[in-house]
């Protein structure tokens, strides 16, 4: 069975600074996808960034980047130049693409507060 662990229930950062959210996962599969989703108070889940396991290059999306360490089964999210609008719950998620119907398995979440 696959598991996803986020060990930081809460984090805070000053506006314009950089913060890193941690995520580890466990799987015996070799082909899978990893995601970071953001859930603001509106409850709307928003995809922040995704990483294909077969790609060695770390994904980046503007101020968001990941540090993907496949051997260590680690997938951290770095947010640069933090903005007040980044305040949200962040979920790390795992998906096996071809098996199990492409369902997502989520970590426990990290609540991020960006302070002015």
């Amino acid at each position, binding site marked *: 069975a696959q598991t996803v662990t986020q060990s930081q229930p809460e984090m805070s950062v000053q506006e314009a600074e950089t913060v890193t959210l941690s995520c580890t996962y466990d799987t015996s599969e070799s082909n899978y*996808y990893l995601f970071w989703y953001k859930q603001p108070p*509106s*409850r*709307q*889940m928003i*995809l922040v960034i*995704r990483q294909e396991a077969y790609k060695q290059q770390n994904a980046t999306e503007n101020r968001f980047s990941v540090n993907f360490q496949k051997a260590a089964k680690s997938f951290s999210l770095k947010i640069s130049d933090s903005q007040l609008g980044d305040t949200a719950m962040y*979920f790390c998620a795992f*998906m096996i*693409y071809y098996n199990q*119907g*492409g*369902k*997502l*398995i*989520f*970590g*426990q*979440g990290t609540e991020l507060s960006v302070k002015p």
Partner: protein
Amino acid sequence: SAVISQKPSRDICQRGTSLTIQCQVDSQVTMMFWYRQQPGQSLTLIATANQGSEATYESGFVIDKFPISRPNLTFSTLTVSNMSPEDSSIYLCSARPDAVNTEAFFGQGTRLTVV
């Protein structure tokens, strides 16, 4: 992309009753899912809604408690049956447009309170 609308957005229900949540997608999608998010917790998959056949339930969830319909490629319903206070949660509908697109889209959820 896909835009997902869920109804109702919230409801307060009496224990022992049932509530049906509707999920409408603005385009045809291959896969639809229902998740539960208990207060302050993560999302747990309830089931995969299969078009034209019975839903596939995850361990710990059963059809009698959470019957699901999916009559076509844009619509699904989740019923929470014989509710108890432990069913108070946010229920989210999710969809993936096709087998190639790995991004999952989500509705805004239904906040259910059982009293």
